[in-house]
């Protein structure tokens, strides 16, 4: 029992992981990253591609932004460089957006160079998610919740995976609905929004854990 309680406490890594996938699913409980979610969930294979790309980028940007936050941006972070009074936290948004864009760009070029096959599968999605708010949102949650480095890395995997699960399930639902006789005005985005709401209600299964 004590082992279970330790496992379920808020700070432990398995708990951070499970919370970010299910309980605080970045898409279905915060509705972040909706635009690419709605646009790309039309086809299952592109949804899988984008899902993997989001996991990939989350895993890279969260630890990097953690380093930036801890050693450059937060109050007193520059003490190692001899500026103990510095507080650059007003630059958080700007820095995070720039660092995410830079990482995505570098990763894209690297993938193109070393694995053209992976690039063909992921390539077009990478620039698309540089501006995905789930990515920036993940980094900002990490700051707000004062995660340690290990927690930030775990949260990256978990929140990316949660987003991927949400978009893949939505893509398969839309694939099944392709023959449904949806009323004209609701076709496309309308019914997708309604379905997202219902799926989010089903995800309330885990709220409270």
């Amino acid at each position: 029992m004590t082992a279970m309680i330790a496992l379920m406490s808020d700070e432990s890594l398995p708990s951070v992981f499970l919370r970010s996938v299910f309980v605080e699913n970045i898409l279905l409980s915060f509705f972040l990253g909706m635009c690419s979610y709605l646009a790309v969930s039309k086809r299952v294979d592109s949804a899988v591609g984008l899902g993997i790309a989001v996991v990939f980028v989350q895993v890279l940007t969260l630890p990097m932004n953690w380093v930036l936050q801890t050693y450059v941006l937060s109050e007193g972070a520059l003490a190692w460089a001899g500026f103990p009074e510095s507080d650059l936290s007003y630059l958080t948004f700007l820095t995070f957006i720039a660092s995410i864009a830079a990482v995505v760009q570098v990763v894209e070029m690297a993938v193109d160079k070393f694995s053209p096959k992976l690039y063909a599968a992921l390539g077009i999605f990478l620039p698309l998610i540089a501006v995905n708010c789930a990515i920036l949102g993940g980094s900002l949650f990490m700051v707000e919740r004062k995660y340690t480095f290990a927690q930030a890395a775990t949260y990256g995997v978990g929140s990316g995976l949660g987003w991927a699960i949400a978009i893949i399930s939505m893509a398969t639902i839309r694939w099944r609905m392709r023959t449904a006789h949806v009323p004209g005005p609701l076709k496309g985005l309308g019914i997708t929004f309604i379905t997202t709401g219902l799926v989010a209600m089903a995800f309330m299964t885990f709220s409270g854990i």
Partner: protein
Amino acid sequence: MKFLRNLIEKQRKLYHGKDSKLHKLWPLFDSAETFLFAPEHRTGPQRVHVRDYVDLKRVMNAVIIALLPCLLWAIWNTGAQHFHAWAKFGVGKEYVAGWLQALFPPTVAEPSAFDFVIFGLQRMLPILIVSYGVGLGIEVFFSIIRKEEVSEGYLVSGMLIALIVPASIPLWQLALGVAFAVVLGKEVFGGTGMNIFNPAMLVRAFLFFSFAGQISGDAVWAAGNQAPTGVPGYLVDGYSSPTALAVVKQATTNASDALQAAYTHADLFFGNMTGSAGEMSKLAVLLGAAYLIFTGIGSWRVMLAGVLSLVASAFLIKFASGAETGPISLLPYEHLLCGGFLFGIVFMATDPVSSPETNLGKWIYGALIGFVTILVRTINPAYPEGTMLAILLMNAFAPGIDHFVVAANQKRRMARA
């Protein structure tokens, strides 16, 4: 029968054909006709035509027959629990009879079996009427506007809805829940056969999150008679009785002991306890399940996978944690006797529309429902029961399960070719 047939034939020209007087109401006429008689529509004379009289309406009727034991028990038990509660909390108060009891006055001091049934009918009939009236009304309205046939999917949903809410539910809340589920969960997806989520489950989830005070807690399970002045209505004043799962959830000692102190296993199996109207009697559910499996209408794969997975997950969690106290310590098979899991897996999870279509998918789907139910029951402190949310969650993943099962099958066959 002849008489009905003649009557329908006489009426037909009023509705059939574009210029006829009441052509707008054709869906209504058509649904009444096909409800009474198996339709004889055929395709052209030169084509191969496979016919089976077991159409959607006949399938739905079979499910209704399977639900009858639960409904009968719901009527009986609603009355029994009412008089049981009254014997404890009505002492010294004046008994106010309801509308049906005014015709058949009960002997309050020593209620007979007949009084139980009268009270049960008095409470269950309005619930059924509201559930069917609102739901079918919306379906017919949509069919007429969209010029489609009225389909029968709602016949089962309406009955299920009446059986999964507490008997004390205020009728306006029920009407609101039904309207929500039928419009936003079913009609906007294109009606029967197109919905992603089980409409009956959506009604309950909607009520659960919107009006938690009237659908959860310990006070709502015994219906009463008093004309309500505000919410909560239709309760026996002051009476509260935790359901089996609430006992388990609140247990600070060994949950199995706490459960058996409140209810014997026979009580749990035969349904002599409080809970949502129709889900208590495991015997009634098993009778329904046997009928569904025998006629081939309910998927035995989903049911078997769900039950096995529930027991196995409960076993694993109990022995992995080694817990001696709290909800985790409940014996695995007792999870089957508590709450609405059996009812859910037999009547809700086997819904052919919102569950996977592939056989392997059905196994996966049922197993995950059992697993998530146990997760909620044991480690989620927020809710005592997880069946409803587990089924809704798996409804969301059912198309995904199907998709990946089919993809894997294609890959396997391509490799073999």
